[in-house]
């Protein structure tokens, strides 16, 4: 089994896909473990989780000066469980780039690279329980402080709250 799994990996290494855009290519090429793909016509880079901050720093140097969004997706049964999705914009080159890392809980925080990641990472923590390492103030932002659980996880039921209307017995 090991022999079979190694062969395609080596083959993939040789024919590594890189974007035709020079700026993106120059950004992605130094990261050997980063893989590039297009999703519905948009550039997506998939990274190992520990390289996120290093990639972020070089993306900032490479002209992606605006972090447009940080969010997460819960795949429940998959290992690792979560996708953390970072959307970047370059005003200079008029480019968009999406970074996706897979994680079970810990992700390096991007606040030191783009301070604007602060609220977004707090929201992702609040909703998914993802631990952004080195975040200055990783507390709940939308849910009440005493809330238990992380609502946007797939194993968190939608639930309902019974509402009592004053005139409900008359309607029936």
């Amino acid at each position, binding site marked *: 089994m090991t022999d079979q799994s190694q062969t395609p990996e080596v083959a993939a290494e040789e024919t590594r896909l890189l974007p035709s855009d020079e700026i993106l290519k120059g950004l992605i090429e130094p990261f050997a473990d980063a893989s590039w793909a297009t999703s519905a016509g948009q550039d997506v880079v998939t990274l190992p989780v520990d390289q996120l901050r290093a990639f972020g720093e070089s993306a900032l140097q490479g002209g992606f000066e*605006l972090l447009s969004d940080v969010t997460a997706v819960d795949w429940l049964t998959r290992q690792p469980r979560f996708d953390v999705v970072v959307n970047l914009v370059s005003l200079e080159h008029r480019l968009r780039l999406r970074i996706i890392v897979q994680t079970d809980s810990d992700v390096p925080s991007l606040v030191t690279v783009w301070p*604007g990641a602060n609220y977004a990472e707090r929201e992702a923590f609040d909703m998914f329980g993802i631990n952004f390492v080195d975040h200055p103030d990783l507390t709940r932002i939308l849910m009440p402080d005493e809330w238990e659980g992380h*609502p946007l996880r797939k194993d968190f039921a939608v639930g309902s709250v019974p509402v009592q209307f004053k005139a409900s017995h008359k309607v029936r």
Partner: protein
Amino acid sequence: MTKSKDVDLWISGTEEPDWDSSTTDEGSQEMASTETDYRLREQLGSVVTDDYVFDDEISDDERMIVNMGPQHPSTHGVLRLQIELEGEIIRRTKPVIGYLHTGMEKTGEELTFMQGPTNVTRMDYLASFHNEHCYSMAVERLLGIEVPPRANTIRVLLTELNRISSHLVAMATNGMDIGAVSIMTYGFRDREQILAFFEKTTGVRMNHNFIRPGGIAADLPPGWRADVKAILENIRRRVVDYDDMLKENPIWNGRTRGVGIITPEECLAYSITGPTLRSAGVDWDLRKAFPYAGIEQFEFEVPLGTRGDVYDRYRVRIEEILQSARIVEQAAEAMPKGDFRSDDRKVTPPPRMRIDQSMEALIHHFKIFTEGFRVPAGETYVAVESPRGELGCYLVSTGEGKPYRIHTRAPSFYNLQALPIMMADSLVADTIATIASLDPVMGDVDR
């Protein structure tokens, strides 16, 4: 930030002669070319450190923490601020949000793609068309369908009218907060005319559910050209009047000039977009940068500010109203003929006439409105320029009839991060003007 050396540095007290230093001194940060690179990065906002120094010389009587909101009439919804004051000077601010959180992203996972617009339209309730547009474009991108030109032009027409109505509210509430109550009544009066047109078109004033994946729900109503013409005529005349009333007004100038300053570097570092970013002089408008829905065929300019203060943000919005009026006029003139929905029968329900004639059409109609249509597996991020900034929709589909994950990049949510920067070391009396100039919509912040 790599370009920190290249920025135009200025030293406090060396501003232009007409600069009103009495209001700016507290809000300004001293910058000098001799400062270290790290300190400069810190001041430009690309490095965040808590630079608050506890000053022992000020007695504890002077320092206090004031809680503002969430039920304060001037906080534009349920925004709560914890403000640390030294006398009348704000040292630190912490926005506390979540009072309007209704779990719309979770709700969105339970609704079909067809029902999605009813959900997203309630997020930013002042710019509901932009939310619907953004969501619909994300679904269409995953489906790989194009909407017909007429649908696109109607979308542009409606979203730009929506931008005008939203900016009118921003102008009105900004005026009301500062004390110019008449501008409040004027702004809401003119907005009502636009909302009346929306009501005629979509059936409701605010939460329309009109722009849907595949096109729009219905064609424009009879007589729409005359309505749009009347709106434009009215808006153009009156907005100029309001601007004349305010832009030279000494009280207005005193309350807004040099208040709530934010630099372009801070804007970019803190992901701040929209009129706030443009008021700092950064030429960034998604309609120009990544044109969508055929907006590139219309001529318009992107108004820019220079100082990034409350006054510039007000001026940028006023100019944007006039530019949007230009787009609306061109869109109304260029309105193409043809279908207003995609002819992809997977997405578009059959016409009403066919339902009476064909059993298959009836089944098809029933299926679309009960199960909804299936969207191919994939993920995408689509952004539009809403009146508050970059409004994005991150959509993940697994090939089912409902989105696996729907996330909205809410511009107000990110823009709120500017508040502590704008308010640091300013007077407590300027708080209200600063909040109003950001124009946050709490439905958008909390979702």
